């Protein structure tokens, strides 16, 4: 059955991860090779699935209205592609980073499983399936957050867990509404309620709002963003990939699905169900940046930056126009590229030079010029300086806002600009410091940086830069995917 490719792409890494602790490995190299090969193999499978045209694959029928099914459509392909692209590179980085920590086995076991589960979220054909993978992701990433095992990590992990499950509990309400009013949870472009009677619209709006609030926990919207900065205690590959790409983008992806493929723009538009989420995202955009500015700890600063940027995506999507969605999707991809690069470099600073706070960055550019240059480039991109990708997505968002008109879109536009300014300050100023000044005498010496880390960072930086110059096919694809949905 040809649809099995979809399942294979999901099941392979999960199985591989589950097997990792069980098999007795003949030395570290064999284990590392296994991990890397299986990750790449999964990427290959995912690529085949993305570019092929596989039909929907229904795996389990829970009852007449709920089924566990996989299917790839436009935005699913986009998200799956992003995950499949970034996971092998981060795995490569992690192989270098985690070396010698004695916890590699449990780390990579859950890391691999999370890969499969994230792909599952992208490939879900209906809300139940997405919900299942969503919950599973919370559980599979929990041990990764708590990896270090000290009390701070455990507290951070539990906070993450409670927030995630609490959010999912509220998102569950949306699922109930869909089953009750729509009879199914399948994702349909334009939503299930194209011709719905008026009295139901009012109830559906409430259901949507609760669902949005539920999923917005993973998408770190104010006021339920609190778990993300705390989760920065996790090892860097975890924070980078999961908390800048997979987990938080899953929250955003779920909201996109629910907004455009379940409830539908028709139901939500021009009502409190659109306005409240829009207002929350506008606030979060500025809030995240302000907190980032105040924050001295480097990884937490980047975490707050993620909080802000996720709301850029949601803002675009909540405009409920084709351009808005396209702009949001563009930022989804571009932010992932930029943020993961920044986080991974921050990880090197953290772990190989003992730099945890922004103030300690002085002069590290002398020891690692290329790495720091990449950090500066990433900062420029995040601020939205052309010709880097950050500018392209911000431009698209701004244009979408201007075309929408209305108070909230313009408020969002202002928020975007203020945020750009603040981002400039909280990222570019440290980038400057990196290159001037000297490291204090009592600073720990720099440990050598493994080859795997160098290669992965080089690849990621190259991707980040190239995307700016070759963004057109991507933009075309996204515009096509987005325009049929409204």
């Amino acid at each position, binding site marked *: 059955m040809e649809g099995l490719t979809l399942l294979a792409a999901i099941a392979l890494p999960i199985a591989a991860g589950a097997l990792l602790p069980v098999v007795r490995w003949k030395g570290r190299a064999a284990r590392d090779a296994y991990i890397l090969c299986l990750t790449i193999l999964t990427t290959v499978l995912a690529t085949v699935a993305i570019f092929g045209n596989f039909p929907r694959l229904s795996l389990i029928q829970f009852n007449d209205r709920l089924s566990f099914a996989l299917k790839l459509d436009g935005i699913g392909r986009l998200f799956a592609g992003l995950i499949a692209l970034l996971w092998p590179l981060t795995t490569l980085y992690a192989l270098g980073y985690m070396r010698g920590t004695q916890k590699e086995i449990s780390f990579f076991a859950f890391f691999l499983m999370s890969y499969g589960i994230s792909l599952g979220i992208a490939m879900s054909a209906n809300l139940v399936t997405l919900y299942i993978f969503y919950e599973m992701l919370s559980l599979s990433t929990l041990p990764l957050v708590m990896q270090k095992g000290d009390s701070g990590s455990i507290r951070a992990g539990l906070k993450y867990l409670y927030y995630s499950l609490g959010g999912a509990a509220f998102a569950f309400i949306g699922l109930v509404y869909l089953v009750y009013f729509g009879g199914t949870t399948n994702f349909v472009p334009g939503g299930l309620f194209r011709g719905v009677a008026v009295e139901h619209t009012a109830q559906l709006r409430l259901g949507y709002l609760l669902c949005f609030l539920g999923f917005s926990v993973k998408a770190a919207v104010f006021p339920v963003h609190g778990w993300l900065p705390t989760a920065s205690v996790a090892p860097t590959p975890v924070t980078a990939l999961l908390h800048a790409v997979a987990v938080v983008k899953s929250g955003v992806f779920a909201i996109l699905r629910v907004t455009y493929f379940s409830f539908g723009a028709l139901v939500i538009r021009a009502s409190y169900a659109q306005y409240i989420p829009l207002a929350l995202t506008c606030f979060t955009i500025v809030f995240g940046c302000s907190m980032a500015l105040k924050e001295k700890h480097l990884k937490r600063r980047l975490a707050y930056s993620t909080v802000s940027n996720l709301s850029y995506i949601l803002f675009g999507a909540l405009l409920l126009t084709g351009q808005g969605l396209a702009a949001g999707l563009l930022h989804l991809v571009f932010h992932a590229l930029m943020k993961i690069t920044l986080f991974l470099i921050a990880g090197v600073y953290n772990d190989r030079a003992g730099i945890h706070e922004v103030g300690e960055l002085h002069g590290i550019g002398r020891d690692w010029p290329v790495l720091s240059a990449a950090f500066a480039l990433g900062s420029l991109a995040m601020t939205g*300086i052309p010709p880097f990708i950050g*500018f392209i997505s911000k431009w698209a968002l701004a244009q979408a806002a201007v075309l929408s008109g209305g108070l909230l879109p313009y408020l969002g*536009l202002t928020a975007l600009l203020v945020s750009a300014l603040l981002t400039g300050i909280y990222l*570019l100023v440290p980038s*400057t410091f990196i290159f*001037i*000044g000297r490291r204090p005498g009592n600073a720990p010496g720099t440990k050598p940086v493994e080859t795997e880390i160098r290669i992965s960072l080089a690849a990621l930086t190259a991707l980040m830069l190239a995307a700016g110059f070759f963004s*057109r096919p991507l933009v075309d694809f996204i515009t096509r995917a987005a325009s049929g949905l409204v």
Partner: protein
Amino acid sequence: MEGMLLLIAILLPAAGALMLTLMPWLNERREDRCLFVGAILVMECVVVALVALDGQRTLVLFKMTEQLPIALRSDGTSRIFSAVMALMWTVSGFFSFSYMKHEQNEKSYYAFYLMTLASLMALTLSGTMVTMYLFFELMTFISVPMVLHTRTKEAVAAGIKYLIYSVAGATMGLMGIFILTPNISSAYFVEGGSLLAGSLTISKDAFLVVIFITLVGFGTKAGMFPMHGWLPTAHPVAPAPASAVLSGVITKAGVLCIFRMVFYVIGADFIRGTWVQWALLGCATVTVFMGSMLALREKVLKKRLAYSSVSQVSYVLCGLYMLDTMALDGALLQLVFHALTKDALFLCAGAIIFKTGITRVEEMHGLGRRMPWTMWMFAVCAISLVGIPPLGGFIAKWYIAEGALSTGAPVFSWLVPIVLLISAILTAAYLLPPSVSAFFGGMADGEAVSALPKAEPSLMMLVPIFILSLAILLLGIFPNFMIESFTRLANALM
């Protein structure tokens, strides 16, 4: 390929900078380095002249998205600005060959110097708003290291302040670009503007507010109130030749952006007579006045010159915002002359520091005896800056004042000339006394002064200043060809 010259004008200094960083053998010995940089600068002047003579050309570099071309274009405006920039840069560059002997980190200085020139050229030659924004930001980031050059705490703080102000200003400008884009008929700059005033996407009032914010934002680089705070700290801490170009040239980049936005995108007619025009004029006049006042109180020479720049560049803006042909003429004249003058003044100040270590105005007594050539040229520039005929500054200010009076605009038609007059007096107050005391001061300790050694700087430093002073003199006496071309341009734009 059409427009290849445009690309060369940008890539030449950039390539030079890259070669300096990547080919250490070029950078090893001072002589090699200076020769190389000098050659590049001179070649650049040639290229710019060729571009200016070539006529209007467009070159699309690449398309970020379908609607966002990154393109270069040469036209009347770019001719003026690029000529000024290239000339200033070359002159200051030659000066620095000698000056930088006693600063550290010379190697990186020239690379950033050339890169900044490249980005400035690109900015001048930008053909669309987004291109202009791109190079505006780029130029900011590349010029930051020049400000930070000495790596002292003061310099670093000043550099960061410059960075933040610039990013803030650019963001404000970006807001305007965002909102203007759906409202214009052509992404490229069009003489007279391409605004679809009849079918704006937002209300006219909101639009005016946006325009105001945009122009204030771009005005940051030009040091216009209220975004002037960075200038007095950033300009002085840089090495003197860098201060020269920062004050003399990079501020003009801010003016250029405003110029482009007002005359090539929005169109003067849309703004004329609205509160935006009055508000901007207000800001500019305030800056003129305030800059002069602050310069008067300032005792450190370089800082005094920096505040003076704040004031003088806003003369340009005053003329610009009058939205009148004659005033615009005056503005462009002021632009050229201020560039020449301020550049020269900073170089003089640099020479003084280099040779005697004197930084404060009161220490300049009797300096004229020790460095006669330098101080003579200082005096000439001071006179020009004040606006005394027959030197160039006078004509510029005359045109601005006359233009203002002739517009018949409420309040500002008489306020502007008055403020200009007051400012001229203040300028005289803060520039003439040091010049005078340089020659006639220190009489009481006559022996003490003459006992001090002669401190005339080397030819390498003198000649650039001389060239500038000569230009000020000659252009002041024979301004006509400039006035004609400026008038032609101004008419085309309004």
